């Protein structure tokens, strides 16, 4: 069973989400504050965190930042619908994806499953040793590891998936729609900026290792392209 950690201050809502997820065969733990969430996270091994960004106290964004200091565990944010700024900040802090509130439990479960499906190590042993290599970039999709100039990249699940899509299509333009569907597992929403935020985080991580510019090119208004040298 997949372990889900729910962090949200709305007690009744959390109760219902937990019940729903349990019926969908998840093992659910709940926390009502960022603090509780962080300490639970240290004690146990979770597959995914569902985090409400709009919490009082040490709020969701701070909690997210603290989580990212320690691990690359997949994080799904709950954001206010229509509030772009919180969502973008959350993605910049390294959240994997978001679901706008209010949402139906079905939408939420679908998002969780999409992230989990894509963040697991492949069960297929053949896949385990498969390497994709372009220039100095090496990807082991099975082990979910990526190297750039022989140094391991610390990528979140979404970042890894997006990079995988790009490297598989190296030298070709990949549209944002394709990136969203293949990398994040859901269709591109209108004015989706999350792809751009993820890509810019990947770029920063590449540039941190090697100062020459990252090999990902933006094709304005259309998509991205991994350059083959």
């Amino acid at each position, binding site marked *: 069973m997949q372990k889900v950690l729910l962090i949200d201050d*709305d007690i009744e809502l959390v109760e*219902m989400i937990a019940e729903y997820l349990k019926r969908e065969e998840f093992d659910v733990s709940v926390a009502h504050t960022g603090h509780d969430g962080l300490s639970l996270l240290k004690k146990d091994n979770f597959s995914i965190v569902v985090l409400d960004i709009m919490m009082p106290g040490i709020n969701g964004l701070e909690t997210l930042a603290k989580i990212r200091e320690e691990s690359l565990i997949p994080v799904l944010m709950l954001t206010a*619908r229509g509030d772009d700024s919180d969502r973008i900040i959350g993605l910049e802090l390294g959240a994997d994806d978001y679901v706008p509130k209010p949402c139906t439990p079905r939408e939420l479960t679908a998002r969780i499953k999409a992230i989990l499906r894509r963040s697991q190590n492949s069960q297929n042993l053949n896949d385990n040793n498969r390497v994709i290599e372009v220039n100095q970039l090496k990807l082991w999709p099975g082990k979910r590891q990526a190297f750039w100039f022989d140094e391991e990249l610390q990528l979140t699940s979404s970042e890894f998936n997006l990079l995988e899509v790009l490297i598989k299509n190296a030298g070709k333009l990949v549209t944002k729609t394709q990136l969203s569907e293949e990398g994040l597992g859901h269709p591109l929403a209108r004015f989706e900026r999350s792809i751009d935020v993820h890509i810019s985080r990947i770029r920063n991580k590449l540039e941190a290792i090697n100062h020459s510019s990252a090999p990902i090119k933006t094709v304005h208004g259309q998509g991205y392209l991994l350059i083959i040298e």
Partner: protein
Amino acid sequence: MYKLFWKFFFTIWIAQLTTIWGIGTAIWYIRHHEPLTEVNLDLSNGASFYLDPVVDTLKTQGVVATEEYLKKRFRRIVYVVDINNNKELLGRKIPIDFLELVNQKSHTSLLNNAIQSLSVDGHHYLLFVADIPSPWRNRPLIPVVPLVGATLASLLFAFILARHLSRPIEILKQTISQVGAGHFNISLHPQLVNRNDSLGELASDIQNMSSRLGKLIDSQTKLLHTISHELRSPLTRLQMATGLLRQKMIGNDDEMSRIERECKRIDLLIGELLTLSKLDDGINHLNEEIIDLNPLIREISDNASFEAKSLNKLVSLNLLNEFIQVKGDTSLLYYAIENVVRNALRHARTNIVITVMKTPNEKAHISVIDDGEGVDDSEIMHITQPFFRASNTLKASNSQGFGLGLAITYKTLQAHNGEIQFSNLSDKQGFKVDLYLPLLT
């Protein structure tokens, strides 16, 4: 803008000039009629040269003619005094002691006729000549130097005073137009703050008023925003509960679907209200992205086309074959245009035509035409008001709107310095909406 200054300036200047000239003239007049204190009796031989014509006139033509003659200007003044009552013919004042002097001298001066006496019609007259005191004699009829000086001085003071009065008003005017544009947190110019007069008080009153106004409007929008926001939590719980219920009872769920639909509708309403309050909150919070209009409108049109098929309607799109870029908030502009297209789709009989053009004055022009019945002419001016639905929607069965769409569209275009126009095609053959947005240059 400087109109006020010039008004003040000329009023003050003219007032000063009038005063100066008035007082000047008065002084001049009085000086010319004041008693001859500094006048010297002219006892020289030349005096008779001035006296003789007067004596002649008095003898031959009488008093009236003499008066006329005396009024003429000469380099010397001839006085004609009636001895009986010590009155001068023209009424000019002569000091008594001066007359005594004349009387004394009259005996000695008879030789050269510098003082003469004469009797006419029973009046005894004494005639003598006086020097005009030199400053008076040299003075020109129009005193040019003092006048020019006074005029220049008045110009200067009129300028200073007009500035003093008009500057604060100009500043205040600019401040107030800021308030009009929606900036309620005005800071006063130091020139206004340091004034202790009514203008200074007026300025600080205006500042107080506008900050109060700002706070009121602020709290109003905040309230709308908070209410909308707060409604979301229970709505989320409601949706969650419905989902849970659906998960538990598999089977007939007509009512469940209805509840879910209504939840979505409330969510939509809250979303529109939040957008509206964001727009009310001010232009300052909007994103400023560069937007290609063509792909944006194509997406809207494609979505509408997809929906139109099931309604047996047709959406056609005419794009311009060049880059059309505007600056602004993509999601707001998308919503603004989409709402107009959706309205058209809802009200059209069969056809919707979307056209993108450029106007000669560098604006993007998006027109959306449908072949529906249009809006009653008397209602067109109201359709941008929040929650206004025209009478045509009551008849349409599939109308589900809140009447917020065009309010958002209108405010969005306003925030982007754009314009929106509505018109009915003739004979109820359709409705046309024109949107204008300034192009990025």
